[in-house]
């Protein structure tokens, strides 16, 4: 069973790695942030799998911490994006403009 759980953790980590492409490519900062959020959930899942597989104590606490702080980080992003950064929002609008061309039909 341990091996299976570890394999599942590897698999989830693999999807996380795949998701990194979205952080690399953007194109908008919101995309990057949501990718990070997604990876956060994946990280929590991998953590729980690893923890149960190796019998680590207090893994739920670490998971709780990660979940709490991932939410907190997104809030910080939204606050920063809408209040402080004149340059950021401008950049976003300009770069987001690349998107419609690839829209689905």
């Amino acid at each position, binding site marked *: 069973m341990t091996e299976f759980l570890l394999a599942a953790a590897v698999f989830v980590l693999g999807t996380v790695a795949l998701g990194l492409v979205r952080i690399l490519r953007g194109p908008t900062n919101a995309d990057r942030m949501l990718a990070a959020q997604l990876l956060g959930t994946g990280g929590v899942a991998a953590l729980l799998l690893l923890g149960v597989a190796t019998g680590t104590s207090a893994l*739920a*606490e670490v998971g*709780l911490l990660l979940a709490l702080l991932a939410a907190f980080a997104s809030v910080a992003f939204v606050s920063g994006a809408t209040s402080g950064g004149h340059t950021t929002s401008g950049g976003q609008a300009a770069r987001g403009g690349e998107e419609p061309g690839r829209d*689905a039909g």
Partner: protein
Amino acid sequence: MLRSALGRWALLFGFWLLLAGPWDGASWREALPDLAVGLLAGSLATWVSLRLLPPTPERIRYGALLRLASQFLGKSIVAGFDIARRAFDPRLPLRPGYLDYPVRIPPSPDRAAFGALTSLTPGTLAVGSDEKDHLVYHCLDLDQPNAASLASDEALLLRIRFADSAQ
């Protein structure tokens, strides 16, 4: 006021018990300090909760709440499958667009909760509120009966608190 304070305290204390797990300990005496700290921490958390989110005078119908919870659990599972289906489909069947939903819940934490919950249901994502009485939704597939689904969810939510306005 007192009722909802007690309710929250019970909920938060329950969460503490989850975290601390005092009944895992060897003996009753060892668990005692844990419980005492839990009572204190729970009270502190309740106080903060009451400060941040003052309770409203209406009473909560727990039956409706339970039904709502179970329904959203089911819907969020369906939502997951829905995403998976669309993501794996080579044709990428999406018809995204916006939906202005005339919301009946007055602006309040309840409405925010409605937005959050409906973001977990298949195909809809609350984006913001355009005017006073509209919530803007982003939909994955405009061909789905999104508005109807939202309306039924809303009715369910309204029943928790406003018994009269439910159909």
